[in-house]
């Protein structure tokens, strides 16, 4: 829940207003100057029409150096950020050879599998030598290897569903599965803060799309009752089927979804549910099995569970887990299975090894230790940030914590100051978040040690004071807490 103080809202609106006015002024003068220059388009319409990239040209380019920072090492807990310079006021950026070692608070590396791992990497290299980099073929033609079938069974076992199917990219999984499940005459009800891949998949399916308020089960019930009673728009025929799409952890809010309430509503009205666990699989839950385990929901109650391997397993790709009939149907109709190159075998092996570590089947208890570490790290970090007076979103146990910034000027200030102090932070603004609600997003990893987190807290606190984002009152520091911190240092 975002609690935006009135003064901050006013100043943010004022800042954006000034930026827009200046942007329009510059556009106006640019048009005047270009009037005299010859127009060499010769009858073609310009490839990017006027207002489409207004935001890019006039606002984003000013702070371009805060985004897209290249790195030159693995995205582990500490990594090397390449330094860039610009000669023309941030319009173009050039790489240098110099790098700075920074603490990584931005990569999706929840369980620490991002860099070379002692169990996974030798096996990955072996599978690379055996199966080579790519199969150059689709899954149905000649691209299914033994590794793919092994991973599908392992994923189904891990998630708790009868069967699973793999895809080479998480984004394509959503965009290509939703059209295969529902078409014209169906209804999709999706959470208002769903990811762009789900929105694209829903639009590409041809079904009617309705939105319910974020994480609000009573509102979902209201929307469902109204839609079922009125039927399809204009013809009022009954809907063919209804699917409700929700996510496990919302990546811009760090919140868990209210799964038990939403599943209860869906069961009452006989609608199908689709759960996207991109950020929560492997990262939350006692044994890493995602939000279902954490919130105590039986996996048989959810019709389709989707997830990706990019975040917790340090690989790439996505999966769908559901009943055997649904998976067989998808294998026959889903275009991503029939037309796209199959997942690269070393990436498949990485997921197999990572899952074995998490399940404890590699013979050690590294998996359980990693899961306990990330839970402890997230809870510690979140509580410390809240004590310092920052506005932190998200629930307990979730490894994503956004810190609200609001004003557009604070975005580059926070990002650049933190980078000077060797902490790499991700800042997010429009269009990924609403215009007024810019934030800095921190992703905690099991690879972060206590010292790393304490250093990060110090830097963030200092920079937060400098930039002025401690919107809430600071909790008074209790004496024994200070000693506890001193002991760890």
């Amino acid at each position, binding site marked *: 829940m975002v609690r935006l103080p009135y003064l901050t809202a006013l100043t943010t609106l004022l800042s954006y207003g000034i930026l827009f006015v200046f942007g329009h002024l510059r556009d106006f003068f640019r048009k005047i100057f270009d009037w005299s220059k010859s127009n060499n388009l010769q009858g073609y319409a310009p490839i990017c029409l006027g207002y489409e990239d207004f935001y*890019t040209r006039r606002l984003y380019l000013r702070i371009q150096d805060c985004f897209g920072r290249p790195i030159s*090492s693995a995205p582990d807990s500490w990594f090397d950020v390449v330094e860039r310079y610009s000669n023309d006021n941030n319009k173009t950026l050039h790489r240098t050879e110099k790098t700075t070692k920074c603490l990584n608070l931005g*990569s999706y590396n929840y369980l620490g599998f*991002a860099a070379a791992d002692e169990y996974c990497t030798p096996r990955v290299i072996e599978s690379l030598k055996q199966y080579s980099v790519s199969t150059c073929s689709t899954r149905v033609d000649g691209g299914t*290897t033994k590794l793919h079938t092994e991973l599908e069974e392992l994923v189904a076992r891990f998630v708790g569903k009868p069967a699973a199917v793999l895809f080479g990219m998480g984004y394509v999984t959503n965009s290509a599965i939703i059209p295969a499940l529902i078409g014209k005459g169906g209804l999709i009800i999706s959470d208002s803060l769903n990811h762009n891949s789900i929105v694209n998949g829903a639009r590409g399916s041809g079904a009617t799309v309705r939105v319910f308020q974020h994480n609000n089960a009573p509102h979902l019930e209201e929307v469902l009752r109204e839609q*079922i009673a009125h039927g399809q728009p204009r013809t009022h025929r009954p809907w063919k089927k209804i699917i409700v799409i929700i996510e496990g952890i919302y990546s811009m809010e760090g919140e868990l979804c209210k799964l038990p309430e939403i599943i209860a509503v869906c069961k009452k009205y006989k609608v199908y549910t689709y759960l996207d666990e991109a950020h929560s699989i492997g990262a939350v839950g006692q044994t890493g099995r995602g939000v279902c385990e954490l919130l105590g929901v039986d996996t048989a109650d959810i019709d389709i569970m989707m997830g*990706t391997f990019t975040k917790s397993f340090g690989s790439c790709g996505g999966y769908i887990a559901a009943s055997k009939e649904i998976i067989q149907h998808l294998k026959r109709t889903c275009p991503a299975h029939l037309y796209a*190159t199959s997942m690269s075998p070393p990436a498949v092996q990485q997921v197999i090894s990572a899952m074995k570590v998490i399940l404890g089947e590699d013979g050690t208890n590294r998996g359980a230790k990693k899961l306990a570490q990330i839970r402890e790290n997230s809870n510690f970090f979140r509580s410390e940030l809240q004590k310092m007076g920052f506005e932190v979103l998200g629930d307990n146990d979730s490894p994503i914590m956004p810190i609200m910034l609001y004003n557009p000027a604070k975005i580059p200030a926070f990002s650049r100051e933190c980078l000077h102090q060797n902490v790499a932070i991700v800042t997010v603004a429009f269009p990924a978040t609403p215009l007024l609600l810019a934030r800095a997003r921190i992703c905690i990893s099991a690879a972060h040690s206590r010292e790393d987190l304490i250093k990060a807290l110090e830097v963030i606190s200092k920079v937060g004071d400098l930039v002025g984002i401690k919107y809430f009152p600071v909790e008074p520091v209790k004496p024994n807490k200070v000693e506890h911190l001193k002991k760890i240092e």
Partner: protein
Amino acid sequence: MALAMVNVTASVLDWVSSYFDAPTRAVVFGVPIDGHLVVEALLVVVILFQLTRKSYKPPKKPLTEKEIDELCDDWVPEPLTPQITEDMTYEPPTLESAAGPHAIVNGKEVVNFASANYLGLVGNEKITDSCVGALEKYGVGSCGPRGFYGTIDVHLDCEQKIAKFLGTPDSILYSYGISTIFSVIPAFCKKGDIIVADEGVHWAVQNGLYLSRSTVVYFKHNDMKSLENKLEEVTRRSKHPEKVRRYIVVEAIYQNSGQIAPLDEIVRLKEKYRFRIILDESHSFGVLGNSGRGLADHCGVPIEKIDIITAGMGNALATDGGFCTGSVRVVDHQRLSSSGYVFSASLPPYLASAAIAAVDYLEENPSVLSKLRTNIATLFNELSDVPGLVLASHILSPIVFLKLKKSTGTGKTDIDLLDSIAKQALEEDSVLIATTKRSSLDKCKLPIGLRLFVSASHSESDLLKAAASLKRVAALLIS
């Protein structure tokens, strides 16, 4: 009775007219109030009163809670997926080794014509070594989208290398082959724009066209006359040619038929009617042209004339992912508005380093292209007289496409026949070939058939074996 009525009416009228003609009773603010003014004022008040009344509409009764409950109870949804019948449980052959020209399927060695491994780079030593180095340095995944610390220096090196190889100013990498084209098209085409596309484009292009919400007109597959007619029609109907963006979308080598698009014709038409070209070179990058630079090299067209080129790297370059290249404006625009680039994790770094190594290999050994061409010509020759099947692809296309001479009746029986040919060829002769499988979401109406992907590392005996096997099995199964 009538007389009484008349009397009453007359007296009422007298009474009213007396008021009407009454002399001035009062003077208000210098205006003499005559009797008739009072009646007129009353009339105005009545008119105003009527105007403020709402017009009569029969009252709308919203559904009561009980009615909604009943409707919800009555509603029965369709099952999420249709019933699965026996023949739908087809399992593809499982490889137990790398997908090279000779692969191991179910324990025995087969000749592999189902992998688009055109340059024979699967299993190449140099590429494997560079991947091992990348895996040890960077791990497997990149753990983030390009905007949030997912940009690794190998990505930037790969983009520069591809741009330099093709001779374009800049290029941009995507993390998956098919997501390239269906992210590029909606980034440049919005509602109101006009697109003229070939009817044989594959599903990813169709999805991109649908997501872009532009007006799409299809022309007959690879037919330049039909294209010209459609361009003429569209230009005539278009009202504001200066404000509407217009594109022609074609593939260099069509996946669904193996035909090659005549690029010089298309460029001539594009310049005549002021359209822009989006060209998908997934199967022609690294194959066509003297140096493998694709269709523009093959047709002798300067690369600047093609506005946007996209390609998936899962074919000739034996890695995964895709790229898009064009002018600086084109590439920069995609970095913020292409959904498959912004909202998705970036390409794993070892695949990017494999792409760099593959392009290096292609630059250093251009002779592999002539080997590929000889292989294609040999196979084309051998397969020209298979009983019951006819060659439908272009003579230079590395996808050799065979379709049925005569359909067996319905689409379903055709598919079954082709599947049984492929199955028998695999089981009896150890030759792995692929049939075209169409998704139910695919709108392409081109005929299905058998596809053989020719590689530069196939030996002559492999090609002869495949041809002999197909001839034998086709003679058996096609009556």
